[in-house]
């Protein structure tokens, strides 16, 4: 899993609020949280906000098919968040963001490609852990 230094400036504001969050981030694979936020906010790229709500602009354009992303970092560990992106519960509507196999009739344009790259998944996870319950 790619690990790289994260500068203070790259961290989303909430991340330094609690020492715990900082420790958690430093001890685990670090993605780029601000890029993770941008990936989620980019509907065309990640499609997250079609199903999830969360602390993002335009709440009226967000879906309610899945739990809110707000507070995700408090409800789930970093490992559990990563698991949901890579190997979600097969009974849920959540697609795997890493899978390239086990899918049916994937369009030519998308065949053999995951929804997000491993680095992008790291970035999204790095951002999600910063979403703490108030």
């Amino acid at each position, binding site marked *: 899993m790619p690990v790289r230094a994260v500068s203070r400036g790259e961290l989303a504001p909430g991340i330094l609020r609690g020492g715990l969050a900082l420790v958690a981030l430093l001890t685990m694979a670090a993605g780029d949280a601000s890029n993770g936020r941008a990936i989620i906010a980019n509907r065309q790229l990640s499609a997250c906000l079609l199903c999830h709500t969360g602390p993002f602009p335009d709440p009226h354009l967000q879906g309610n098919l899945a739990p809110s992303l707000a507070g995700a970092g408090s409800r789930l560990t970093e490992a559990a968040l990563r698991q949901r992106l890579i190997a979600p519960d097969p009974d849920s509507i959540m697609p795997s963001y890493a899978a390239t196999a086990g*899918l049916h*009739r994937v369009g030519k344009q998308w065949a053999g490609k995951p929804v997000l790259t491993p680095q992008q998944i790291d970035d999204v996870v790095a951002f999600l852990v910063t979403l703490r319950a108030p």
Partner: protein
Amino acid sequence: MKRLLPLLLLCSIAAGPPVDLRSGYDDASAETRAMQDDDGGNPGFLWVREGEAQWSQPAGPLGKSCASCHGDATVSMRGVAARYPLIDKATNRPMTLDRRIGECRTDRQQAEALPPESDAALGLAAYVGLQSRGMPLNVDADNPFVAAGRRLFETRMGQLNLSCAQCHDDRAGMKLAGAVIPQGHPNGYPEYRLEWQAMGSLNRRLRNCMVGVRAEPFPPDSPEMAALALYLAVRAKGLKVETPAVRP
């Protein structure tokens, strides 16, 4: 399964086809419903009038028009759209109304095929569909293609790995990107979509959904499209034909 049961009850997910049928009309905004309700303001009637003109327009070497065989559409086509798709006697396969009109054109009139989604094709389908407006969909469900269509409807597909059923059976009424998910009934086609700023067929709509989940769409005249259209019509049995419907 035991472990899942409480969850299923809690979320009322995987509910199967809707019992309480809601037309897309019921989920549209008041403004969109008003647009459909007024024939003078429903843009679908631009295509209906095109179809009406086509109906008596001779085509092909025989110089035959639709009217040459079928006479007055307001009489002969009454109720027809409510019975389609049906199982074609010659091929023993599901036949959609769009395809039947296309076949009439190429086989009976021996005229040049109408391109799919052309104004002429949509117009004829809209004009024929209008003759069943207000009549309940009543498609013959006694054939194996219905089950085949249902399987397709419930098959997850595409890079986003979603089935039609996951949204339109299990989550109808919830919001996808801020828009209400309708139950997904075929009772208004061809219909005018604000999204398209034009009239379009059920084929076009299904293709949109499939491309949306990043899947390879079934070809327009494929057995899969026909089976899916058949299942959708059976699933919507009793809903009134609204052609030309207006939808967001």
